[in-house]
């Protein structure tokens, strides 16, 4: 089962009943989506706080977790980032922009069938480290990071 959904069930305090409702299609998927948003993590003002709110205490670098990001972004409003995890049993990938007002940008959970490879486009308010944190089924966290430079545009300056 999807980890986020499991958390939801636990916090709802009536896992069995909710699961049954879900299975019966009484709760629309968007209702589930609404309950999932991790406010603490997304509203954390620094990377350390966000990572902590995701439940990661220490994360190690590993060659099986990689990130593709431009060294210099053509436009900070749309920076293409791809994160690929070849770590066995990857259950989630989160992406953070260190210098943004709220660093946590996105967090994805992979159920059976979902391959832990995601491509997103992010806003960078300035030159910053972009960081990915992956979680594996055994509860371990891994990380990778890259610096993306944001440049000034033409004409208007």
């Amino acid at each position, binding site marked *: 089962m*999807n980890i*986020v*959904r499991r958390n939801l069930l636990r916090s709802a305090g009536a896992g069995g009943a909710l699961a049954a409702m879900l299975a019966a299609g009484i709760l629309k*998927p*968007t209702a*589930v*989506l*609404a309950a*999932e*948003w*991790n406010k603490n993590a*997304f509203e954390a003002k620094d990377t350390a706080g966000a990572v902590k709110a995701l439940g990661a205490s220490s994360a190690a670098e590993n060659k099986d977790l990689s990130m593709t990001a431009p060294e210099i972004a053509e436009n900070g*409003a*749309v*920076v293409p980032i*791809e994160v690929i995890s070849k770590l066995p049993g990857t259950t989630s990938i989160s992406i953070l*922009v260190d210098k*943004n*007002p*709220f*660093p*946590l*940008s*996105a*967090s*994805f*959970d*992979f*159920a*059976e*069938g*979902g*391959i832990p*490879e*995601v*491509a*997103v*486009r*992010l*806003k*960078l308010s300035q030159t910053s480290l972009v960081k990915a944190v992956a979680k594996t089924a055994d509860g371990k966290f891994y990380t990778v990071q890259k610096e993306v430079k944001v440049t000034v545009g033409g004409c208007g300056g």
Partner: protein
Amino acid sequence: MADPMKIRAQMKGDICDIKILMSHPMETGQRKDSDGKVVPAHFIQSLSVDLNGKTVISGQTGTSISRNPVFGFKVKGAKAGDKVTVNWLDNKGDKRTDEATVG
């Protein structure tokens, strides 16, 4: 109501490549309009990708996602003709569900 998404789901070998374009302002709550007034935050918070009715990837997003978001995902166990459904929901309760057929 929000505009429809564009979803492309294409088999590449035994992996299904899914590209999603969403129509959404993704307001950070920090931008000021031309009159100098702060534009309130308005952004997608959650999304899910279902294959034949079963969620394979679910995501949560914050204000750092670019306006008119673009996502790329990969799914295994799919075949041509399967149904891919994408849902999103934003912080104001707006939502959208769209479908595509795997090609």
